[in-house]
């Protein structure tokens, strides 16, 4: 029996090729993402472990910054002295200065930092054996006008020793000359690094002499990190600062970088998931068809005495062999993929050596579990069907295999699952609670997807009748035959189209959601933004006071309202403590924004010691106008603020700004000093045109490439671009799904062509030209692809509309259907159909007519 199985596997290897490719792709994405994330996290573990001091003292981080405030937490540099003197077992202590978010420009005002969104950091130069960099040319910086720059940035931007740079730091800009180049001893995570002498770093980057952003303490011989940490904490007071051992510091550094790496990991796993999902359809279909074609052969095996179990085992063994081959090749492809990703990271400035590629034991295990699991699961049903072949099948003269048993069971199962899915989606649409709506949405999406896959074959007849109705008229009998061929085996057509459907449904849903988000933001911007111009950073990063001063000093500027953010924690009357981000606005907010208040007004909201919040949030937590709320600010400050107004905005709760809290800029500066402005809302002075003002502003801000001047339309575009990033990801997912789905269509058509050899021979004999035959197969392919696309779009639109209902709870009330995308998807599916038919059509047209019609 095993011999028969192996023979069969080898005999069908051509037909199994595409299935193996599907397995390969799934496995490659799974292993690629595992290898990549292992390698990167190992690299950074090593980097941070090697650069962390034995004990690090840093300012207490009580509130996380979801939205950057531009504030750099400091501690007195004199702690160094105290630690050195008061703590036993300290070999050395250094005051570190490390300031994030600098902007450095060259003499032509071109930014020198990375363009990838990675930060530019300014540091105090205090070389030691744990420095991540070493001086490779030039000399150490001395005095306020000298700096070192890292070699990678220098190479990228062609900066040399002797070049003049302008550093735009929070306290103000200053000029430096490059006096040396430093080289990374470890991996550079992608940032640009500048080094100054300690005094310069303190005064020019932090704005205050005698401060530091952290203290590094080295332990003396024989003193453990934990022991030293306890002693330092004891000497300085355990609750005054954060103390971390080298291990803890490395862990915390990795965590900070982790968010970014997690994103890459999840994206990759998303690709793997899509590949697996679509691949399953392909494999199920391949095995179903192979078994249908081999019905007589299997019947013969049964007639010769093989029992059902043996037949089933034979098919499953074949599947496992396929999985084994696919997984092995996929593992190799995954290593290649990881290497490619690492190279790509290199282009973004994160240099990881591909030699350091880390392949943990989990990777090959995952590869084979995924590869074998997918094929086994996918082949299980066809194998059961194979086992059900009766010995009589060997004797019967069944011409076309697998025309299909009644689809009643499918109808029932599809209807039940579909009804459950529809109920979940309906529930999500009417739900008022974001969290329950979101989980209902997830459930509904999964259930409706399953229902559509189950019921797909049932939809084949009605939908393709409609879709292909024009075919006989347009293409005559060729069109008629292609349409009917697609209808011939609804199960097969349904399964083939399902692969395409999954990807398209996903994209349909996401594009409706993002289009609705865009429309909602547009509406909200139109409604609320009243300023002529907004000056801000394209990543919403804060900028130094200097920029604000320049804008104020620009000719033609009438009014400038500043906006800032700070992390806060509010204790609410119902006992909840909510950590969020609050905004601070300058006076005359009403002239640059249209805030809708449920109660109170801007004057009450911005008054000293007062704050405003979203009406719904206030209601949920039992807050009313006049409530006094204890508010915690960064750096351990706290205050009791009075609720002055409640707002009624569409999207008060944006990203990380739960509750829509805001207060006057004065209040913010009193309790959260040291921040930077995040946005400036500018109105023209009377008599100055918008165009003139814009030109003036742009000229004035030329030395500050980190900020841009935007009017309403530009501001919308900025928001659109942020959402578009999400869409690009979705399109990439779609691309992969489509590639695999195309493989599926190719597979189905190729096997169908083989099945219909005699029919094709007959057609050729009675005069069907090769070109016409190819067209017939192409049209069939197009019908299948468009069927998949229509089903996918219908499902995607449903999902999208429900997603929008959930988003509406977050204030995104506009519903927008991306008609252009929908049309493009349908057109694209026609192209997919044509491409998928290329090979099968060629094969059919090359078929030998005589061999095809030979009756013996």
């Amino acid at each position, binding site marked *: 029996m095993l011999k028969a199985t192996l023979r069969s596997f080898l005999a069908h290897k051509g037909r199994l090729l595409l299935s193996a490719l599907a397995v390969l792709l799934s496995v490659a994405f799974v292993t690629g993402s595992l290898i990549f994330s292992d390698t990167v996290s190992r690299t950074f573990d090593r980097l941070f472990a090697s650069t962390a001091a034995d004990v690090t003292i840093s300012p207490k981080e009580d509130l996380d910054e979801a939205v950057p405030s531009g504030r750099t937490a400091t501690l007195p540099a004199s702690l160094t002295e105290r630690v050195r003197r008061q703590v036993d077992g300290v070999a050395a202590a250094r005051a570190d200065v490390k300031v994030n978010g600098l902007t450095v420009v060259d003499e032509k005002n071109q930014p020198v930092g990375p363009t990838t969104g990675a930060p530019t950091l300014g540091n105090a130069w205090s070389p030691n054996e744990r420095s991540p960099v070493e001086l490779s040319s030039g000399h150490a910086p001395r005095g306020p006008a000298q700096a070192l720059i890292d070699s990678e940035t220098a190479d990228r931007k062609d900066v040399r020793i002797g070049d003049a740079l302008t550093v735009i730091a929070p306290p103000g800009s200053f000029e430096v000359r490059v006096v040396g180049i430093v080289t990374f001893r470890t991996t550079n995570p992608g940032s640009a690094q500048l080094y100054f002498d300690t005094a310069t770093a303190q005064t020019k980057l932090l704005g205050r002499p005698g401060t530091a952003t952290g203290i590094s303490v080295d332990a003396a011989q024989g003193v453990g990190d934990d022991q030293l940490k306890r002693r330092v904490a004891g000497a300085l007071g355990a609750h005054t600062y954060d103390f971390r051992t080298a291990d803890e510091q490395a862990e915390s550094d990795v965590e900070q970088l982790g968010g970014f790496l997690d994103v890459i990991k999840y994206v990759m796993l998303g690709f793997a998931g899509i590949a697996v999902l679509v691949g399953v359809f392909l494999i199920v279909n391949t095995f179903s068809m192979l078994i249908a074609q081999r019905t007589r052969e299997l019947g013969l095996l049964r007639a010769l005495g093989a029992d059902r179990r043996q037949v089933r085992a034979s098919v499953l063994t074949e599947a496992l062999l396929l999985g084994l081959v696919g997984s092995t090749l996929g593992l190799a492809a995954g290593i290649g993929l990881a290497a490619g990703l690492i190279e790509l990271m290199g282009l973004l400035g994160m240099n990881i050596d591909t030699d350091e590629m880390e392949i943990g034991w989990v990777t090959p295990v995952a590869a084979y579990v995924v590869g074998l699991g997918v094929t086994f699961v996918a082949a299980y049903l066809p194998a059961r069907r194979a086992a059900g072949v009766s010995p009589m099948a060997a004797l019967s003269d069944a011409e076309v295999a697998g025309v299909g048993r009644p689809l009643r069971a499918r109808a029932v199962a599809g209807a039940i699952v579909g009804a459950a899915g529809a109920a979940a989606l309906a529930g999500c649409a009417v739900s008022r609670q974001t969290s329950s709506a979101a989980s209902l949405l997830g459930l509904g999406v999964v259930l409706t997807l399953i229902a559509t896959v189950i019921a797909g074959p049932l939809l084949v007849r009605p939908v393709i009748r409609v879709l292909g109705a024009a075919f006989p008229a347009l293409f005559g009998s060729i069109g008629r035959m292609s349409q009917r061929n697609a209808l011939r085996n609804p199960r097969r057509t349904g399964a083939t189209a399902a692969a395409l459907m999954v990807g398209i449904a996903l994209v349909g849903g996401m594009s409706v959601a993002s289009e609705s988000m865009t429309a909602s933001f547009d509406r909200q911007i139109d409604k609320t933004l009243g300023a002529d111009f907004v000056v801000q950073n394209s990543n919403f990063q804060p900028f130094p006071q200097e920029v604000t001063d320049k804008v104020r000093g620009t000719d033609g500027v009438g009014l400038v309202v500043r906006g800032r953010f700070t992390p806060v924690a509010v204790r609410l009357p119902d006992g909840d403590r909510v950590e969020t981000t609050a905004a601070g606005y300058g006076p005359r907010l009403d002239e640059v924004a249209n805030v809708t208040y449920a109660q109170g007004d801007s004057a009450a909201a911005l008054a000293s010691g007062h704050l405003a919040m979203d009406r719904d949030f206030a209601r949920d937590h039992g807050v009313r106008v006049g409530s006094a709320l204890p508010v915690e600010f960064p750096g351990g400050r706290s205050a009791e603020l009075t609720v002055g107004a409640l707002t009624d905005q569409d999207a008060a709760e944006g990203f990380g700004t739960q509750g829509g809290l805001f207060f006057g800029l004065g209040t913010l500066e009193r309790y959260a000093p040291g921040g930077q402005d995040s946005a400036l809302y500018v109105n023209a002075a009377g008599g100055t045109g918008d165009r003139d003002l814009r030109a003036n502003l742009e000229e004035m801000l030329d030395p500050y490439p980190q900020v841009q001047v935007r009017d309403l339309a530009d501001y919308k575009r900025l928001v659109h671009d942020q959402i578009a990033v999400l869409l690009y990801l979705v399109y990439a997912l779609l691309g992969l799904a489509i590639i695999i789905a195309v493989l599926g269509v190719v597979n189905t058509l190729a096997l169908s062509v083989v099945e219909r050899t005699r029919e094709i021979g*007959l057609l050729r004999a009675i005069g069907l030209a090769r070109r016409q035959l190819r067209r017939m197969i192409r049209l069939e392919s197009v019908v299948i692809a468009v069927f998949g696309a229509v089903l996918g779009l219908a499902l995607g639109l449903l999902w999208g509309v429900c997603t929008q209902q959930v988003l509406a709870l977050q204030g995104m009330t506009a519903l927008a259907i991306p008609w252009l995308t929908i049309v493009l998807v349908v057109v694209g599916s026609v192209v997919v159909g044509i491409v998928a038919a290329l090979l099968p059509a060629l094969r059919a047209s090359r078929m030998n007519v005589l061999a095809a019609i030979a009756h013996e």
Partner: protein
Amino acid sequence: MSTPAAEHAPGLAPADGIAARARGLTKAYGSGETTVLALDSVDVDVVRGRFTAVMGPSGSGKSTLMHCLAGLDTVSAGQVWLGDTEITGLRERELTRLRRDRIGFMFQSFNLIPTLNALENITLPMDIAGRKPDGAWLDRVIDTLGLRDRLAHRPSQLSGGQQQRVACARALASRPELIFADEPTGNLDSRAGLEVLGFLREAVDQLGQTVVMVTHDPGAAAHSDLVLFLGDGRIVDEMRRPTAEAVLERMKRFDVIRSRYEDAPASSEEN
């Protein structure tokens, strides 16, 4: 092309030319030592308006002869004409068009496209060509074959005999110059087979068509006007106005004939 049926009296009277002709037709398979000659320099003329049967034992080359005459297969040497057109040397595309427009086919089995109904199958060659069928002729063919109430049926809903009648109607529908029937009764019971043979006879007599039928059944051959006997790739004999008994007798003598066969040129009835 074919003369109107009205001018044909039943019988053989106004045969007016050659529908297909082969000269020195040779078909070899393999090469060198292992060469097998399926057709060995065959000369044959198919007379227009007649029902010609090709008989011979298995492997005698009768199917190969039909495939070569119909432009389905290439020849190793010799020439083949359909009417005035030499088809040897035509390119694939021209051959396809020729088959579509000038030849009708019936096979032993699998004659019909399962996805098309009877009427669609009948008009398929014309649909492929993008031509409108001649309505009056089509009606006549359909009525002659008694298919009027079966037109909307799919092949799977038809009996074997009905399927062959549809195939016969398809072969006739475009009024081809020549109809090739390859064992058209091979898969039918004797009654359905007789019916089909009767229709082919009628196609020649009433509709003025030209039919070449390959068969190994003497009873089927008896319906033809002329039987050509093929042996070892050559035409070894012919018989006019055959009867089943005579054909059977002739077939029994095959081995004897084979032994004393001389290279006599194959001929049609007009030689």
